[in-house]
């Protein structure tokens, strides 16, 4: 699988760039929307959660963390991840035109979907770092490690997207279920709220969640300027690798039939 992805790197990269560039094609300010959208998101969440629901935020005020930075450090990776999963889930059906006519390896389309949301994520994170710097965060060397958890999370998104995308060819309901499930899942995780408001046993359980080790790592590096515990690193890498292997096996088993159905 990796070999064919490497062989098609040119296409994956090119398509991801085109995707981002064309997303707002025909609009007046074009590429600027890529920044305005996350900005609007940040402002909305910050206003809602820091004024109306101020009680919840107190949990963090002890550490004197600006809520905005806390929020974005979890929200941006999550949004990119769910974008990768949803796009991956639809990748085969949406690219049926190519799959029917050209002998392209299937996973290339999932990879290019994941790549384009990764690029958006990196863009958003640059924005976030600027905001953090403006809010008197001193940049540290730990920030340089930030791409690692982000890429691990996106690798997870690729794996899950590939798995669901393969199954979605056979059961088209899966794409719909995925969208709904991801929306709900966000609120079950300490992304917009602090982990401290959860009961301790839930917090312990969350350490095993596929997404949390990555997000915790981002927060450790960005907010607290320290390395996360070793088990976070292990879990952060083990999840994408494990799911990637399963997705690869499923794809191999069903590959012959995918082309029959798209």
């Amino acid at each position: 699988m990796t070999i064919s992805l490497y062989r098609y790197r040119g296409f994956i990269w090119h398509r991801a760039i085109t995707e981002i560039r064309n997303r707002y094609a025909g609009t007046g300010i074009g590429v600027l929307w890529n920044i305005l959208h996350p900005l609007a998101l940040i402002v909305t969440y910050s206003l809602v959660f820091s004024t109306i629901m101020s009680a919840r935020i107190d949990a963090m005020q002890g550490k004197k963390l600006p809520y905005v930075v806390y929020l974005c450090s979890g929200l941006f990776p999550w949004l990119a991840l769910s974008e990768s999963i949803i796009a991956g889930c639809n990748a085969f059906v949406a690219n049926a035109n190519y799959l029917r006519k050209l002998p392209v390896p299937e996973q290339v389309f999932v990879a290019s979907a994941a790549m384009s949301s990764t690029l958006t994520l990196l863009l958003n994170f640059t924005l976030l770092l600027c905001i953090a710097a403006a809010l008197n965060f001193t940049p540290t060397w730990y920030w340089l490690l930030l791409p690692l958890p982000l890429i691990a999370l996106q690798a997870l998104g690729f794996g899950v997207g590939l798995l669901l995308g393969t199954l979605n060819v056979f059961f088209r309901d899966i794409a719909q279920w995925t969208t709904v499930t991801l929306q709900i899942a966000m609120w079950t995780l300490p992304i917009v709220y602090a982990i401290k408001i959860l009961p301790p046993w839930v917090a312990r359980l969350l350490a095993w969640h596929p997404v949390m080790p990555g997000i915790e790592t981002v927060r450790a590096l960005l907010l607290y300027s320290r390395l996360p515990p070793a088990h976070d690193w292990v879990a952060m890498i083990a999840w994408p690798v494990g799911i990637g292997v399963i997705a690869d096996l499923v794809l191999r088993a069903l590959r012959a039939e995918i082309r029959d159905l798209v």
Partner: protein
Amino acid sequence: MSAPLVRAWGLGKRYKLYANPYARLLEWASLGRARRHSDFWALRDVELELNRGECLGIVGRNGAGKSTLLRLLSGTLRPTTGGFEISGQVFSLLELGTGFNAELTGRANVQQTAQLLGLPADYASQHMGQIEKFADLGEFFDRPVRIYSSGMSVRLAFSMFASFEPEVLIVDEALAVGDASFQRKCYRRMEEMIDSGEHSVIIAAHDTGAITKFCDKAIWLDGGEVRLAGNPQEVVQAYLKELLVSAANGTPAEQPPRAFQPPAPAAQSGLGVPAEGLLARSRAAVVYPSKDSELLGVWLEDAAGRVVQTVAVDEPASICYAVRFTAPQERPVFGTRITNIRGDPLVGTNTQMQGVVAGSYGAGDVEVVRWPLSPGLGVGDYFISCGCSLGDDVHHFLVREVDAYQFSVLGTARCSGVCNLLDAPRLSSRA
């Protein structure tokens, strides 16, 4: 003798048909023990061998497995049984457009397709000039493919694949969409590729003329199996013959509606109508029946008067039909017309124009009309219209069947254009 460029053995493709997605889910949940699908074999046991510099033609009706075979060879479907080997790159021009992105320009699509085919990064750029020139799309080359006509998409696709020079080029029916001059260009390009001895071409076409002309080998697929393989001339002839016969015995849905059924031709053999070998009514037929007369059958005869199914390009032949009158008629006029596949009338004439006067007929009388046909029709498919009208008003038809009978002229092409009025030239130096 080098190894064949393309080799396939026992190639088969089965589709699993499920009544609904849940049937599949049940089957999966039971780990395959509860069988919920029915099998459909689109292709079975196909053996192929093709050397460099050869052209393979595939004929067969819609649904015979032509596209499945081509898609298997091009790698967009995976075989259920058997396998194949192609020592080199295969590009295929399947259906229309070959996976273009409608929003991108022609040029950008060439780039993208090259990437999708896993070609090196600068490959498309190197060939761009050649592709642009061959496709001859003018400024459209830099416009989005969305605004292309289907003919233009095919031009772009063919130019691209031919310029990339794959070891094996697969061409589906797609070419039929392009205009005649572009088709000509495509065939010339394919000829060059074949003649270079480096490439092979596989074509599937309804245009059986192209297959007899270009191919070194042909296979006829029928119901997913190879019915006949070998010499293109023989394969095409057998295929066309079968087409005509089966159209005659076709299901009701395939036949045009008719007001009344003519009697079975075999019963008429005593009236000068051959017992078998009648041309089948084509699907393009427009039939105007009447209660005054009926057409008993249309057939072809060669120079020796034998009933034939096809006409040889250099041989004279006759178009024959029999009319039975159900009411007395005085000096009716018999007419006929030959149209080519594009609908151009090549010739239309009748007994009056030819200075032939018919006699008087009583109810139940049968007249057999034979129209001698000089050699001159080009290789291809033609339609015959025939009818009979009143002597004092040729536009008042007693019976008329338009484009109702199809036949093919086979052999070596002697001309381009609609028909040949010229014989083989004499050269003074060779006299």
